[in-house]
């Protein structure tokens, strides 16, 4: 469960202060399916980074599962990301020299899990994103859709409670984009909280809860 209270994020651009997030209050429950939409510069990506603990607020508070994240140091935040949060990026962010298998394995390698356990979990995760054949292929040998499936498998392999997707279909054709979203929705049905940032209304419109942002504020929040 996520709770934001008066969350601000200011950026210094030249001698101007830009309020990317302006006193944001927001709650999201486990298992929710939320889309965040809005024009460029509305703060939606900043919000997603904030939810993913990649960024820290200038002011305000963020409770994740009723734990305040304000006083945590980098390594504590990293530990929470590792356990609870999965990321899917627009540009996939696969490590080019590693095979699909190794890419999916990476979070578990960082967590220090033994190889046998890793193999099983990689197989399960790849199965859940409907990619089981091409595990020994490197990213440059895979199609865009396949790459994003690998990235999704990597995001869910540690069994997180939250899946954060930043324009997950931005680099894909519409058919594979739709398939990716359908796969994520399937994961959501299995209990994973899904937050998608997009400016594609066709994608954002599928979510049960739709948030619109402008100038760092939430202008509409419909379920």
């Amino acid at each position, binding site marked *: 469960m996520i709770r934001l209270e008066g969350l601000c994020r200011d950026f210094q651009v030249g001698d101007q202060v830009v309020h990317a997030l302006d006193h944001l209050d927001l709650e999201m429950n486990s298992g929710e399916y939320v889309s965040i939409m809005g024009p460029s510069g509305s703060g939606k990506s900043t919000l997603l*980074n904030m939810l*993913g603990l*990649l*960024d820290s607020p200038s002011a305000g508070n963020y409770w994740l599962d009723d734990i305040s994240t304000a006083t945590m140091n*980098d*390594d504590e935040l*990293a*530990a*929470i*990301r*590792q*356990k609870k949060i999965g*990321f899917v*990026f627009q540009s996939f*962010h696969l*490590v080019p*020299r*590693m095979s699909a298998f190794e890419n999916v394995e*990476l*979070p578990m*390698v*960082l*967590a*220090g899990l033994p190889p046998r356990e890793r193999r099983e979990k990689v197989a399960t995760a790849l199965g859940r994103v409907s990619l089981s054949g091409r595990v020994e292929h490197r990213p440059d040998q895979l199609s865009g859709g396949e790459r994003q499936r690998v990235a999704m498998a*990597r995001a869910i392999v*540690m069994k997180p409670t939250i899946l954060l997707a930043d324009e997950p279909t931005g680099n894909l054709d519409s058919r594979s984009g739709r398939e990716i979203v359908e796969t994520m929705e399937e994961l959501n049905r299995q209990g994973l909280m899904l937050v998608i940032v997009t400016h594609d209304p066709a994608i954002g419109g599928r979510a049960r809860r739709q948030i619109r942002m402008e100038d760092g504020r939430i202008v509409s929040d419909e379920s």
Partner: protein
Amino acid sequence: MRIVDCNRIAFGAVTRYPLRTSMMLLATSIGVGSVLLLTALGESARGYVSAQFQSLGTNLIIVFPGKSETSGVSPGVMTGTTERELTLDDARALARSSAIKLFAPVIVGSMPVSRGGLERDTTVIGTTQQFAEIRQWEMALGKFLPNVDIDRASPVCVIGSLIRRELFRDEPPIGKWLRLGNRRCRITGVLSEQGTSIMVDVDEVVIVPVSYAQMLFDVSGLFRIIIQATEGDTMDRARADVIRIIKERHYGEEDITAITQDAVLSTFDGIFQTLTKALAGIASISLIVAGVLIMNVMLVAVSQRTREVGLLKALGATRRQIIALFLTEAAFLAVFGGVVGLGFGYLVTSSLRAFFPEYIFMPPVWAAAGAFGVALCCGLFFGIWPARKAAALDPIMALAGRQS
């Protein structure tokens, strides 16, 4: 993160960029290789010199006139007096010491030798029969000097193999007359080939009885007395005896110097060891240069893989893990370079050994281990900054491919 996995990921990164990696290997291996080569050179010089000294014989003490002062100026220099000469009687008196097994007075000079129409300048050594025993010389033909009283100036000589070849060609030289300056002596023997020993080419000498040499050069004093101590721990006693006996004969004045072979040997050994270490130090500079290159390469790697660092952070990598990954990569570059350098160094030294078998050309183990260690330490030390730089990247910026 497990150590195995850290190594695997870093190894993957190292092998992913073969050109970069091979350049690094080249730089580091040149460093390690040059340490090996230069120390092998120093060691072989040391080995060569000590072999030369050992070829003189064993348990030797060399006595020469004059006291070499280790500090200050000897009184003789101030007053203008010369030291007393070493005489044949001094040498003969040494027979009293039980610690002395053999002794040979030596006079050395240069003189034209001729036979028929052939003439050349050569080194003439005046000594006694025991000299051949001390130096462990073997005869190719005939006999060495006769074992007679030191004072007897028999006109006989022994010649080196080169003198024989040049003056006699294929004729048998034994019993022939050889002209030395304006005197003549009969050849009793030819030395077998000995080669050069301490700057003197033994194949080019003519050896005559010491008293004959005194007449030849018109001198009374000796150039050296070469002494061989009896077997066992008698070197120091023999040296003390020499000094005591000659001091007595010189009216209580210690005006000779007696040096033991061991002392000379250890002095040279020390000099060459210092030299070898200095060479190793100089060669290590190239290892530090290689270290700087590793730093450069790792900085490039960090900027090339900024997105990857961002991803690792998003996946929950701690700062220490990112530092560990990049440091391991730097260490791999250094270790591989070190291994290649060791191989290269041993290859070159062993082929040098094949071409110049008279030299030792063996890099000392401490140099190999040291060079490898310094290479690894340089890799790690110069890898720290790039690794810390990677670990300090902001994850959002890094994911966008920007460093700041």
